[in-house]
């Protein structure tokens, strides 16, 4: 499968309209390096090696977030970037190893502002594609819910975010989820999520899922009212996981602890361990409270054009 000419024309119009929207909102467009010494340390993202410079191994970015956070710490806000990212061994109807990411950051803004941004951008993309979001059930406002609420409704058990992996496994098995050999907290969580929650989300209208359990925090700050969850939302629309937003963690001590923990897990699983991004940790104390978000631009184009496979909106997807 490969993008048709009308699909590429729609893609061009959508990207232009998205840029114009950010300009109207007063954002600065920035460009950050694609080839870095410290790609994302996340356990389940694998960077593609990109040779050596000055004796240091380099990788292609899996997301531009580290550099963008450093720019915010330097006082640039609001900013956005549209760039290529690469993730090894990802290939499916919604995944390509090489894809286009749209990230934006707003200093001194709550997470909810990013949700409103998403609603506006989906409308902008539909308009550029010449389709009516109302006709396909994708008009704003989108539903707002929480991970806890979704588990209670669709998985049939209460997830607090404070349970141990053993307790989570018992609860999932009690609810009839086939767990396999999984023992890690996040693997157990996502087994339930894929079996029970995602099918329900695919059937419902566009939904922001807020308040993720603390073990899935990554770069998000704890919710001040309930530290068992973090300030994070994911947007699901039209069966696509469209965007992930964080109330950005700015505590360098906690961030270092999480990086080291992730590096240990990577090492234990025989994965490449990347150097910790010391420049990011050094910049965090200067960073104001910030909301940041990554949105899969190819997926937004899929949503707005009605494409069922990511290769339908990419030129030369098999290259």
């Amino acid at each position, binding site marked *: 499968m490969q993008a048709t000419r009308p699909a590429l024309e729609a893609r061009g119009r959508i990207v232009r309209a998205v840029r114009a929207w950010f300009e109207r909102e007063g954002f600065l467009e920035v460009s950050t390096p694609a080839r870095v010494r410290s790609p994302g340390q996340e356990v389940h993202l694998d960077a593609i090696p990109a040779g050596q410079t000055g004796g240091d191994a380099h990788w292609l970015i899996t997301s531009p977030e580290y550099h963008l956070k450093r720019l915010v710490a330097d006082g640039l806000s609001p900013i956005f970037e549209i760039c290529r990212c690469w993730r090894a061994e990802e290939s*499916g109807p919604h*995944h390509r190893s090489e894809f286009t990411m749209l990230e934006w950051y707003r200093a001194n803004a709550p997470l909810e502002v990013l949700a409103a941004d998403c609603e506006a951008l989906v409308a902008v993309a539909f308009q550029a594609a010449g389709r009516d979001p109302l006709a396909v059930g994708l008009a704003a406002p989108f539903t707002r819910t929480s991970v806890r609420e979704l588990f209670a409704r669709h998985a049939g058990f209460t997830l607090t975010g404070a349970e141990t992996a053993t307790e989570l496994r018992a609860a999932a098995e009690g609810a009839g989820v086939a767990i*396999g050999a*999984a023992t890690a907290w996040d693997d157990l969580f*996502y*087994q339930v999520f*894929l079996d029970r929650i995602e099918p329900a989300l695919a059937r419902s209208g566009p939904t922001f899922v807020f308040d993720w359990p603390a073990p899935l925090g990554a770069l998000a700050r704890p919710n001040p009212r309930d530290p068992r969850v973090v300030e994070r939302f994911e947007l699901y629309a039209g069966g696509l996981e469209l965007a992930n937003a964080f109330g950005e963690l700015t505590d360098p001590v906690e961030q270092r602890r999480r990086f080291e923990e992730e590096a240990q897990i990577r090492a234990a699983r025989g994965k490449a361990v990347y150097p910790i991004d010391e420049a990011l940790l050094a910049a965090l104390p200067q960073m104001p409270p910030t909301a940041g978000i990554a949105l899969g631009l190819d997926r937004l184009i899929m949503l707005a054009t009605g494409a069922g496979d990511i290769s339908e909106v990419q030129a030369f997807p098999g290259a």
Partner: protein
Amino acid sequence: MYDTSDIRKGLKIMIDGSPYTVVEFQFVKPGKGAAFTRTKMKNLLTGGVLERNLRSGERLEPADVETKTMQYLYADADSFVFMDTTTYDQVQIPRDTIGDSAGFMPENTNVEVLFFNGRAVGVTLPNFIEQAVVEADPGFRGDTATGATKPAKISTGASVNVPLFINVGDVIKIDTRTGQYLERLSRA
């Protein structure tokens, strides 16, 4: 052992103690989680369909199943007898295992026999068979429009719903997957 990277259409694996064949599969990866393979599988014993999200790296036990082309020779009170068309070995398969297929199995026809752990557990017939009607109420003309049907017994023993114009001795074509009459091939 297999793992999830071996998953492809037709892979035969054990799930919860039963053999399954993979029908469809898809790469899925939630935002911050591990990769999974969304796998749709058919139970080789019951035909039931199961969907599982198998986490990357999950070990999968191969199912010891094979299919052999065998010729159906004859049946006695308890079992059906088949011959391996290459080795000429004969195997007996109990009537219970054959199930509803029994009434649609013409003698000397090649069928696919499924073996699980070395034991014959099922038989797949050719999709279509042509059989003579051996019992039916007399046919009559003129009522082809209503789509009304009547039961008729075919020479392999099954009862099939046929149009009213079908007579004993007519040869008809039947879809063995649904047990449905398709067309009349010749008249008595």
